[in-house]
């Protein structure tokens, strides 16, 4: 939990321009009020259950389990949510909160486009204006999601600065928020940025581990031995971990994007290659050079292609409560194909990083062990890019 100054151990904080300070203070006050408001929670639960399709399934992957020959494997199916990923959980919460605060316009950053699509969806549903910032490079990698956002009525602004990926989209969304605060809520998509965002996003995503816990108790009568999730900024990972943090026997494993390998410069594995820094409103670990210049990170997965990690993950790493492993592009692509063929489930390339680690990890465990892999999103958006990766040029 964050302390009253928004700190997770030494991480977190509010490293933002003075212009935004009153906006985040106002947001914190509103959130602290509404999170205990029964009416707010009733509305949010209704949106979760009757719009987003929650609870999501906890699926026993029997084929994968017998193929790998080790631990029993369950998949938490966030890919089955409306809009195709876990991002909708946070967005519905923040959009509802923004509406209660009297805001009429949502802005957001997006990497793979999943958070942008979710924000555009919530804006359409709630009759709000929506502008999504997306790295120009990502608008090419994820052209289908750009179209979906526009179809939903959002403006998509391609960001050309820097590496033209997720970090630049975050910077541009922060700049936009600085210039228009009165009617605008910045719907941040991950457990990052200045306090209170890491806490707000975590709380809205914690529904994932709340459900895993009760579904697992129902299916197996006990808690799992490990929970595995992919981790860029870390919203689906913290959502999957949160309600297990106090259950010390449950191993928590975050899978970072190693890109072409953690011994290369083409990586986005923050815990594995980064060091402590201050960026995008928070103190945490960042990929950076010796002078603190933020590194131009790389991963095949636009959603994990970010040089930082949320402050709560940084703390879980410091305390050893969670472990962060690095998965390469090659391993992720193989896992993408593996899950498709083995279980008939096409995971997002982001989630495929978690599947890839499970393929290595499950066989090392006895058959009476249980692991849960969070499938944070579905992989339709990635099919064209993976085909290209395999040397096949297909039209979307």
């Amino acid at each position, binding site marked *: 939990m964050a302390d009253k*100054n928004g700190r997770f151990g030494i991480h977190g*904080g*509010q*490293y*933002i*321009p*003075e*212009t*935004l*300070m*009153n*906006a985040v203070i106002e947001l914190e006050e509103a959130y602290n009020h509404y999170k205990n408001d029964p009416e707010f929670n009733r509305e949010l639960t209704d949106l979760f259950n009757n719009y987003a399709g929650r609870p999501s399934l906890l699926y026993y992957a029997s084929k994968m389990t017998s193929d790998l020959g080790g631990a029993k494997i369950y998949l938490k199916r966030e890919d089955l949510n409306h809009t195709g990923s876990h991002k909708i959980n946070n967005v519905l919460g923040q959009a509802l909160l923004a509406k209660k605060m009297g805001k009429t316009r949502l802005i957001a950053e997006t990497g793979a486009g999943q958070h942008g699509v979710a924000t555009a969806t919530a804006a359409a549903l709630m009759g709000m204006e929506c502008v999504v910032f997306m790295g120009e490079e990502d608008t090419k990698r994820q052209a289908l999601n750009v179209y979906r956002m526009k179809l939903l009525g959002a403006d998509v602004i391609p960001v050309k*600065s*820097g590496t033209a990926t997720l*970090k*630049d989209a975050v*910077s541009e969304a*922060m*700049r936009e928020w*600085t*210039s*228009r*605060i009165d009617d605008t809520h910045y719907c941040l998509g991950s457990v990052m940025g200045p306090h209170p965002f890491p806490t707000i996003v975590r709380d809205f995503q914690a529904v994932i581990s709340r459900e895993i816990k009760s579904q697992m108790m129902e299916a197996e009568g006990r808690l799992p031995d490990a929970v595995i999730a992919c981790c860029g900024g870390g919203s689906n990972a913290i959502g999957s971990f949160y309600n297990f943090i106090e259950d010390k026997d449950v191993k928590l494993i975050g899978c970072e994007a190693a890109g072409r390998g953690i011994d290369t410069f083409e990586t986005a594995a923050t815990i594995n290659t980064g*060091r*402590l*820094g*201050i*960026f*995008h*409103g928070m103190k945490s670990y*960042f990929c*950076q050079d*010796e*002078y*603190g*210049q*933020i590194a131009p990170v790389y991963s095949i997965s636009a959603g994990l292609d970010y040089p930082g990690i949320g402050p709560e993950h940084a703390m879980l790493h410091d305390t050893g409560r969670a472990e962060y492993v690095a998965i390469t592009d090659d391993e992720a692509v193989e896992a993408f194909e593996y899950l498709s063929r083995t279980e008939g489930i096409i995971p997002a390339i982001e989630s495929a990083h978690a599947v890839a680690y499970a393929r290595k990890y499950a066989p090392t465990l006895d058959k009476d062990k249980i692991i849960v892999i969070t499938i944070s999103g579905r992989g339709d958006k990635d099919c064209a890019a993976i085909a290209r990766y395999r040397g096949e040029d297909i039209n979307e």
Partner: protein
Amino acid sequence: MSNIYKAFENGKAFIPFITCGDPDLETTEKIVREMEKNGADLIELGIPFSDPTAEGPVIQEANIRALTAGTTTDKVFDMVRKLRSGDDRVKVPMVFMTYANVVFSYGAEKFISTCSEIGIDGLILPDIPYEEKGEFIDITDRFGLDLISLIAPTSEGRISRIASEAKGFIYVVSSLGVTGVRSSINTDIGSVCEAIKQSSSVPCAIGFGISTPEQAAAMASFADGVIVGSAIVRLIAANGRNSAPVVGEYVKSMKDAIR
């Protein structure tokens, strides 16, 4: 206490900003000397950062040019050392403007002690608000630098708290948004400055969006000085290594407008 107060002893202060190493550090050195000669009262030196989230496109591009040219924090320190030595040394106060990670990653104490040793008077960190200044201010105090406080049009109830602890000068942000030239400034900046004056006797300088002598004169009527960045950086983008005389001329026109 630093020498920053001296910048406010010649009438209204003109405070130009440039990004160090844009297009290279030799040019930056020439521009600094030329700015002093033409009436700059305090010089704000930007240390480039890869992801300057408080800057508009003009200064973002200057950061990219400077980093592409191989500018590093150590090379900027060397340049300042040169500017502060010899018979023709620069005498006006100088402050660094950069982002928290540049200082933090270098080691805050090592960074700030080096600043003090080479003759830097203060530090502007736009991503360090009042709530986060603790981890830097003990060190700047110890080494005689001023950590400059920023106040924005949205600060409202925060003004007295920030102003009463401010040192050196107060950087008053003229408008919402990021740095960059603006055709007009619509904030009621006068009342922001008045509120500041009730809590602090530290001089105020207004920045963000100022580019013309007319705007400078108008802003100077509310405050003790004006800060200009993007308009100068734009001249440097257009004139490259030949920027020094052009910038000098511009600084003179701006200082004359607020005298």
